[in-house]
């Protein structure tokens, strides 16, 4: 235990050393938070399980494996999501090419309909497969889409207030993020509607260091209006496993790269 603790302490120390001094520029903080949340490692793999609980306590499950590959930190990124559960959506695949500052490219493979479809989304703030996560919560929101302001800096957190540049494209009026000074991971994000009421909350329930990268292995989004929440747990996370760029193609939609999905 002590070993783990000291390891952890060392890791934290090293990462905070890397960040050098306390940050004061809001945009810089957000960009760093974006990198630590969505660009850890050159590539990566994780098994995710989403448990959606509605206001009545009824639950649904979604289980999938995410493969990710970044061209450069903060830049273009490939992502594929392979569903394994519930069993009737097994082998459904999402493919996303993230273009920061522009619309993403999205494809979909539905084995039950034997159909590959390109998706043109009006916006990225629609439900991710019926959960309380938005598509954008999974792929990452473009830091340049909002104005950011550093509200305060506490012992542990940077507290930021962000407002959208294009208010029409989002359902929130503003959001406040508590970003850990140590890991630069957002710990809590609260979304307010135009009445100033918090209606949505994201919480990183558990952040672990994996291969030196702070990783949210458990996160929860609560829809305070609807009374529903979704908890996402990540397991089997591995970074820098050498995923080939060629894997992220239309071909992999119909033919899942089994060898990259199986390993754990």
């Amino acid at each position: 235990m002590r070993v783990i603790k000291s390891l952890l302490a060392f890791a934290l120390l090293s990462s905070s050393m890397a960040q050098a001094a306390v940050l004061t520029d809001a945009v810089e903080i957000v960009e760093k938070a974006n990198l630590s949340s969505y660009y850890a490692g050159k590539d990566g793999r994780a098994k995710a399980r989403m448990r959606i609980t509605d206001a009545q306590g009824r639950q649904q499950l979604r289980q999938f494996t995410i493969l990710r590959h970044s061209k450069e930190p903060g830049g273009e990124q490939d992502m594929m999501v392979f569903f394994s559960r519930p069993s009737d959506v097994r082998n459904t695949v999402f493919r996303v090419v993230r273009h920061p500052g522009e619309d993403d490219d999205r494809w979909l493979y539905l084995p039950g309909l034997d159909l590959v479809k390109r998706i043109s989304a009006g916006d990225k703030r629609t439900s991710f497969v019926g959960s309380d996560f938005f598509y954008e919560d999974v792929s990452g929101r473009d830091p340049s889409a909002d104005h950011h302001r550093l509200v305060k800096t506490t012992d542990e957190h940077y507290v930021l207030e962000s407002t959208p540049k294009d208010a029409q494209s989002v359902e929130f009026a503003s959001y406040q993020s508590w970003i850990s000074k140590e890991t630069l991971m957002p710990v809590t994000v609260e979304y307010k509607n135009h009445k100033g009421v918090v209606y949505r909350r994201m919480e990183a329930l558990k952040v672990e260091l994996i291969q030196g990268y702070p990783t949210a292995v458990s996160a929860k989004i609560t829809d305070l209006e609807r009374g529903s929440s979704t908890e996402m747990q990540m397991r089997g996370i591995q970074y820098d496993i050498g995923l080939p760029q060629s894997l992220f193609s239309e071909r992999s939609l119909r033919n899942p790269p089994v060898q990259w999905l199986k390993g754990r």
Partner: protein
Amino acid sequence: MAPCLLDVSNVLFDKTLGFSNIKMKILFTTFALQHPRKVYGLVLLLTLACLAMMPLLTIDTDPENMLREDDPARIFHNQVKQQFIMHDTIVVGAVSATGEGIYNPQSLQALHQLSRGILDIDGVVSRDQMSLDTVDNITQQGPGTIRFEWLMQQAPQTQAQADAIKQAVNRLPMLNNTLVSGDGQAAAVYVPVADKDESYRIAEEVRGLVAGLDSSDQYHITGLPVAEDQFGVEMFIQMGISAPLAGLAIFILMWVFFRSLPLVTGPMIVAMATVIITMGLLIGMGFTVHIMSSMIAIFLMPIAVVDSTHILSEFADRFHPGEDPKAVIIKVMDHLFTPMLYTSVTSALGFLSLMLTPIPPVQIFGAYIAFGIFLAFLLTIIFIPAYISRMSPEALKSLQNAIHRMEDGGRLGRWLPRLGGFATGRRFVVLLVAAGAFAISVAGITRIQINDNPVNWFKADHEIRVADKVLNNHFAGTYDAWLVLESTSADNTSLANEVNQLIAGAEAQGIDLSAYAVIGNLELDVLASRLDDQLFAAGADEAVWLEQMLAVVEQEQQQRRTFLNPAVLQWMEGLQTHLLASDLVGKVNAMPDVVKTVNRELRSGADADFLLPDTANGVAQTLLQYQSSHRPQELWHFVTPDYRDSLIWLQLTSGDNQHMSQVVALVDAYIAEHPLPEGLRYGWAGKAYLNVVWQDAMVSGMADSLLSSFVVVFVMMVVLFRSLKYGVLAMLPLTFTITLIYGLIGWVGKDYDMPIAVLSALTLGLSVDFAIHFLQRYRELRKQGTNDISLAEMFQEPGRAITRNAIVIAVGFTPLLFAPLVPYITVGIFLASIMAASALVTLVLLPALLKFETIGKA
């Protein structure tokens, strides 16, 4: 509340024990005569105490409360509401006034602005609001590309943009004819409210927003919650206006009859005290005031004055100056006690019989009016003697003058003997006409249409009725019925066997997986997750077994998701088509529509692809896409997250119970011919259906009430007259009258609705009074003279008394005609006419029969 009841009963009944009937008759009177001040004080105290409880009044206008809280239909309805997250909904409709339709920039801008405004109103479940600007559109964007977006995030600025919205809506079966009418003339915003008791306020705020719109369209607000709330407001008005008006009408009428302040004041005090104590107790005991109980005051007032008027009339008749008034009162009471007791008991019985109807508001109404009648009786025999004993000699003189003036008879005195002459002289004509009318009425009763519709409780020109009519003209219907298909409970037995075999297999290899056995009603989701967790940590040997177990569990899970099965969806599709072909149902919204729409857009967007996928996996994947929208919760209005239960939402264009009953019959017939897929059962929910349930309970309950009160009143008549023949005679006029009135309802085509149903049993108790008075007087006279003389004498003072009573009661109910709500008007017309008719029938039919010498012979 309880203390004031007890106080009275202690004073009244402690001393009655052990006394004979004769003594009991005058016991209350002697007490009252000895302690007039105590009686005054007691009545005043009771009245004030009960008056003090009035402010606690809570109005209940929810038709749902026509059913007991534990009624299975109601429990099912509420369970369905929760299961499928259905809210009470206010419907706001915009209708094009010019006929150019709703798809133009100006109309849509106004609608957009209104919808955004409504989203901000407190108490609106904004997440579930349905409007063009809050729903998603699925379209094709070029070949092979599907697009999900808000249908109308911003209001269109050009006609082309408006037309694009039109095209989109026409392609979305879930929205077409729900959000915009099929003819394109009207659009709607469905506003879900968290608490329906707030709907009036919310509706008012919506009206405020509408007033601020720059639009030539006409806006209407409807929906059951608004109607209910509005109804409550108007009920208050009714109680505040009609009840005092009834008091005033009775006062004026009695003044016209008696022209004596003391003769009018005494009975009025009894009536007021009765009404206040009864209503105060009802409120104080925690009952809500429902449409039925709001009429208690109006019912009690005329009933309460009748007995005291009897006493005062007879007292004035017997009293001669110089006599001791107290001695005269005792004589009067001794004479009137039994007939008053009997008429009170029969009237009360009519109301008490309502307790047999399983509708709580009707039961409360019946119980409290019965209580009020007994209270009026008690007050009459206690308060009126005390009142007389404290009258000054001048007042007594004026009372006597009044009575002597009445002896001349006035107009009544002129035409009543003529009526008697006609009845006895042309008795064959009378009896023949009566028999004919009876036969025609019976035929009319068979034509009675049982139907009700809470929206029709408002007058035809009421804004809610107008909105209801306009919106239902354009849309598929604003009345909801929910047909719910439920999976019968799943059995874990075979799964348990399979899993346990695997566990045994693993154990043989020394791997302990006993923790994953299927026990009892284990949730398969939980088991699957646990197996999956273990799979993560397990070594290769263990994993082999775990994966097999997981596969078995998953297969079972998949089988249990009934509503992903295309065969089941096809069955639903068949039912939908059948319902739509019937003209009874405006629109049917269900799972197949969702699946087919998304499937079409996923495939090509062409109409040819508006189909169900072939496999359950195809359906599941289609729905996964549907859920990837701005409104992922939308799906759960049609199916539960475990896909075991599904809701089919029927939109009906009328709230008529009859309409709903026909739909139920239609579905029953369809299912009889096309059996439900295996493992499914069905049930109904929704307000339109609940109304049918309580109405059925009402109709059968009323039959019990009517029959039982008929039998009991008949037995009482036999006992009262100690003659079977007289018992039958006493029942004749009211039997004839009730048949006549209901026959008329049948022929006229007036719906047999709640007020009409309730009145049948209670009029029986009220209208028998005339026959009791008539027959008792006739028998007394017959003992002294010939039949002809007795009958002629009946059309003097006794006939006048009966007529006056009938007029007082009938007129007492007429203020209801001015009420703002239809049920009150119905009750007013119906009661007034039944009272008038039964008095007339008593005065015509009984003499015509009694003219036959043998019939009246004791």
